[in-house]
């Protein structure tokens, strides 16, 4: 089994196309980093004086700077703009939390006791209360903000491309080259070979995922000079001058905890997509067809919902459970959403991970069935 697994892995990584795509993606990553090079600035010392409860005087100081065109303009360094913005946002975040609670309580009052809606709002309230109101402090966690954003944005493209180029030919190439005759007529061809291919797909995908995470963490640590902010609250996470994507998140997580969850879910999503590509590959003798179909499965929900913002229920539902959404992770945790399971509200991350686990299990079983029953007739 181990020998078969090694050979299957070698078949994937010895392809020149895998190496070429990996190099091109890393070059693109480099360009992506270079395009916002002015953001990679260690501002921990500038943030230090404000790591306390922000006062009205602080807000007035920020307002003055905002109004002073000589001090606050397009040439203002992102780190300075970020600090000012973060100080300014504190009040609205605190107000937002209170407003959220009020709205939930009003909805609770309007809901029928014991109904799904009631349970959903009660759960939301419970999570928000556990999380507590924003502390009113400014936190420095920029290296993590950029790192997490990179996985959310470029990480999906990187993993998608690496999975497609590496795994689209997993079975398709066996059919197109005529190797299926030898494989299926061998002792282990209808059993352990399929397990070995599945394990090779998981190892290859996981390796790409870890490689990207490692590069990402090293690059950000080098660019920022540190990885400060792992123990800051998730709601405070933002890039310089950006909004707080987790500002309304109901989850009381620290940035470091979220990063670990993000990596884990990103890995699960990537492996699930890799195994979906493997299944499609088992159905087609053409690697190109596998590549195209799998590419559409990954890209179309993202394009329609995220890029073109099409608010059609089917598309939203598809996007809700799409591989790209799971691999991005952010949307699973940045707002409160539940799925109705027998009148019980199930949190979106739990529902998405459960659905993807069941679907992936079925696809692996399907791959096994398709290849075992494959008839060599052409």
């Amino acid at each position, binding site marked *: 089994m181990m*020998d*078969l697994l090694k050979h299957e892995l070698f078949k994937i990584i010895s392809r020149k196309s895998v190496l070429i795509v990996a190099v091109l993606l890393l070059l693109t990553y480099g360009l992506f980093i270079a395009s916002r090079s002015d953001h990679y600035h260690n501002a921990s010392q500038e943030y230090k004086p404000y790591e306390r409860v922000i006062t009205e005087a602080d807000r007035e100081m920020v307002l003055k700077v905002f109004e002073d065109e000589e001090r606050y303009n397009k040439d203002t360094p992102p780190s300075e703009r970020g600090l000012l913005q973060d100080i300014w946002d504190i009040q609205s975040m605190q107000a937002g939390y209170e407003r959220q609670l009020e709205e939930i309580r009003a909805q609770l009052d309007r809901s029928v006791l014991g109904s799904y809606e009631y349970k959903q709002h009660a759960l939301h309230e419970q999570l928000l209360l556990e999380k507590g109101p924003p502390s009113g402090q400014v936190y420095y966690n920029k290296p993590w903000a950029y790192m997490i954003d990179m996985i959310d944005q470029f990480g999906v493209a990187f993993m998608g491309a690496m999975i497609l180029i590496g795994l689209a030919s997993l079975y398709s190439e066996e059919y197109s080259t005529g190797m299926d*005759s*030898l*494989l299926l007529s*061998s002792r282990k061809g*209808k059993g352990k070979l399929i397990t070995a291919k599945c394990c090779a797909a998981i190892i290859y995908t996981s390796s790409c995922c870890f490689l990207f995470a490692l590069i990402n963490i090293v690059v950000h640590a080098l660019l920022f000079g540190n990885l400060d902010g792992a123990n800051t609250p998730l709601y405070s996470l933002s890039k310089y001058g950006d909004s707080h994507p987790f500002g309304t998140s109901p989850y009381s997580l620290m940035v470091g905890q979220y990063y670990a969850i993000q990596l884990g879910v990103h890995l699960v999503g990537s492996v699930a997509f890799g195994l979906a590509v493997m299944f499609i590959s088992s159905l087609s003798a053409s690697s190109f067809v596998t590549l195209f179909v799998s590419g559409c499965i990954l890209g179309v929900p993202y394009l329609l919902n995220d890029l073109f913002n099409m608010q059609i229920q089917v598309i939203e539902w598809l996007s809700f459970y799409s591989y790209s959404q799971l691999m991005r992770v952010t949307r699973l945790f940045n707002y409160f959403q539940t799925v109705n399971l027998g009148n019980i509200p199930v949190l979106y991350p739990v529902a998405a991970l459960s659905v993807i686990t069941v679907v992936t299990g079925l696809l692996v079983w399907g791959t096994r069935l398709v290849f075992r029953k494959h008839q*060599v*007739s052409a």
Partner: protein
Amino acid sequence: MKLTIQDISKQYKDKWAISHFSAELNNGVYGLLGPNGAGKTTLMRMLADILQPTAGNILLDGEDIRTMGDGYRDLLGYLPQHCGFYKQFTAHRFLMYIASLKGQEKKYALAKVDEMLHLVGLADHANRKIKSFSGGMRRRLGIAQALLNDPKVLILDEPTAGLDPKERIRFRNILSELSGDRIVLLSTHIVSDIEYVAKEVLLMNEGQLLKQDRLVTLLEQLKGMVWKAMIDESQLSSLKRHYKVGNILRQPSGIEVRILSKEQPLPSARTETPGLEDLYLYYFNEELAE
């Protein structure tokens, strides 16, 4: 060991590629002869457990090969007509991969792979990538992979296609050495491949078995039907119209022809000892016989 093909048929859409084919194979080499489209490859695929028959069974020592599953394939060596390779693999790595597919331990496989590479004359090319191999070398590598597990049932679909005469002789010798304690079924268009090694010949056409017998017995039937004569150009077309004409050899004194006929076709014709080519012509050129 006995391989029984029990009334098998294979249908593709509205065409029957194999129709009610039955045969029994014991240890020894069996040659499968038939024209293109006769169903040889389909039959061999079913024997290699990579294609399911529409009807009928294949039994090894009385047990259905579908029930045997891995156990049957463990005894099987198969060389498909169009054998695929991983071009980025070296010959050695490719055979090691096949060895692991056949469930061989690494230590045993290393020794066996070296032995097979020597056997097919590729030992000096073991570490070359397959993409740099010629067609003949790839065919030899295909033969090596089929023999890797010392199979008890060896299915070879056109094994000598692409081999030069020297390589074909080497292959025939390998086959002769191997044939003692296993069933070998090989299909070919090159009749000389089986002329000297086949214990029995299976003649098939349009998915059906026409004859299965020892080669001498089959040739015995043609005794007195194979003629050789010297003719001139003007006689050739008339002769072709009325008889099955085999080899045509142009010589300074005229044209030497080999003719299949129950009666003497020409006064100058002399009987010849029948060969496998005559047999092939006799069975697979029916329209001329009428």
